[in-house]
């Protein structure tokens, strides 16, 4: 990587300045809220930390997001590998289908899920004696899974595509079954992509609100709780919870990012 010097990299300097505008756009409201809270309403933040409903909703959010990510991993990674390794008619359509949850408004996603997983839905109805989705934890997971799975599939597919199939061929010639070659060669080499995809999937699931409130307003996850407090009690009541969620998410996110950076084993010299 090169050091920026004004003489040689004017274009990069201009691009950096333009990029800083976007960074400022992202950071300003978040920092304003966090530091505003710490400076002007620290007691509200302490109250939020001690509020069992807040802590419970944050833990619930993390748990359901993790469950959604685990399901996305089990079903999404094989699909990503298949898409990375095979060409077939209609592949473009399949790839577009995977991206649909990113494109459509999430309230629409929630309504669509409700028609399938609701009490009278094509899945919700036959499963009603075993599991309930409407206003229940499985409903939260389903909504999170729907909106977050594209991030994992796309990242994992990119990772698999970056692994030369010849490496798998060589492994096969050395006696590896296709599963051996996948787990001993392909997965380690695309692990970072899979991990980053999982982090993005988890993070997206954590932040989901629109689809969740349609299918499962209760049990209340953190975004729903923040919304509810904002509607019922105003900004001063919702802001401490929001700050707490931001801080927790940021810490977890940074830790996972650091772990994923350490997974670039094949880049080391």
């Amino acid at each position, binding site marked *: 990587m090169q050091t920026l010097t004004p003489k040689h990299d004017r274009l990069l300097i201009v691009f950096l300045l333009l990029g800083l505008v976007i960074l400022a756009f992202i950071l300003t409201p978040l920092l304003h809220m966090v530091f505003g809270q710490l400076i002007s309403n620290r007691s509200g933040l302490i109250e939020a930390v001690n509020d069992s409903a807040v802590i419970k909703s944050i833990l619930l959010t993390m748990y359901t997001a993790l469950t959604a990510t685990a399901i996305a991993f089990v079903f999404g990674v094989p699909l990503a590998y298949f898409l990375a390794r095979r060409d077939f008619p209609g592949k473009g359509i399949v790839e577009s289908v995977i991206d649909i949850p990113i494109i459509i408004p999430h309230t629409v996603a929630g309504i669509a899920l409700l028609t399938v997983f609701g009490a009278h839905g094509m899945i919700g109805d036959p499963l009603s004696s075993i599991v309930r989705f409407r206003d229940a934890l499985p409903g939260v997971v389903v909504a999170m899974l729907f909106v977050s799975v594209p991030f994992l599939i796309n990242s994992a597919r990119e990772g698999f595509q970056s692994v*030369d199939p*010849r*490496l798998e*061929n*060589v*492994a*096969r*010639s*050395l*006696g*590896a*079954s*296709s599963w*051996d070659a996948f787990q*001993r*060669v392909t997965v*380690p*080499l695309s692990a970072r992509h899979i991990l980053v995809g999982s982090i993005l999937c988890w993070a997206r699931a954590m932040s989901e609100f629109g689809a969740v409130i349609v299918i499962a307003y209760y049990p209340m996850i953190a975004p729903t709780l923040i919304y509810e407090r904002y509607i019922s009690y105003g900004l001063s009541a919702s802001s401490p919870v929001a700050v707490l969620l931001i801080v927790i998410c940021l810490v977890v996110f940074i830790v996972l990012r650091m772990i994923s950076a350490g997974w670039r*084993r*094949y*880049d*080391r*010299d």
Partner: protein
Amino acid sequence: MIGINNLSRNWKEFSLNIDLHIEEGEYFVILGPTASGKTLLLELIAGFYHPDSGSIMIGKTDVADLLPEQRKIGFVYQDYSIFPHLNVEENIEFGLKLKKTPRDERRRRVQEIMDLLGISHLSHRYSLTLSGGEQQRVSLARAIIVDPEILLLDEPLSALDNQTQNMLRDELKRIHHEAGLTTIHVTHDQTEAAMLADRIAVMIRGQIVQVGAPEEIFNSPANAEIAEFVGTENILAGIVASNEGGLTTIEVGAHVVEAVSGYSAGEHVRVCLRPEDVAVSVGTMAFQTRHGDRDHRESSVRNAFHGTVTQMTPYGALTRVKIDCGVVIVALITKQSAAAMGLTMGSPVCVSFKAAAVHVIG
């Protein structure tokens, strides 16, 4: 023995149709231009692709329906395909680990093969820090250590500098000699093929077009396309004027070329002549051979034409000289010879070559 019988595979824009027989312990080179399907053929033999039809016999077993891991075929790709997440030692022991070889034996065998190939000092290095030659050795060690019955080498020397190529070419020959492993090596490099091969198959557009010993391929190419590919730069169209006991007289434009062939008078043929077989001289012509103007001297050289130098191109220690004699003839001479004769563009010269150096094809 490996028997590839009526093997065919069709892709969208390319198809392979192969019949080939390779003896046990043979160093067999498949020589062909880029995009002739050489790598695809190796991948079919290794089982990375399934053929549409045909069989691949290894000994008495048809392996066409076996999985790659069941075929006991080692593979070395052009880019060596070293596993980048494993160090040299881990790369080499990869196959042994899969076979669940005990740790001590694994370590011993890895050390032995690293010593054999002179890469012990690299054992903890990763592929990114290895030179092409080092990667090639690692890749070879990794393929050989699992005791394959056949070794497939996909242009293993093409990514290396000349010096390393020479060194590793000798090493490949030595390893083949010591291990006695049936080896199929594909390349587009004729020197590589000539130096390594027991036999060569020329492959063009997905088909084997000629199989033979190196001298047969280079001196007696079966057709003009092969001749052109194997470096016979002088391919001249002509008509056989006469054939007296094998000594054939062929009219090539205004010239007459004498050659040894079985073609009869009136047949349309092509006269093939390698540039290194053409001698160039200046000053008094030793003799010339033209229609109605023969001057046979006491020499074994039966063909000589007047011409003018039209192009001189450096070619390593040699100079490639193009001479317009009515037909264009290319000669390869040493730089010293060119300098001693004072050759420049436009120099009048005489080109000569023996009848035995001429290969005639139909």
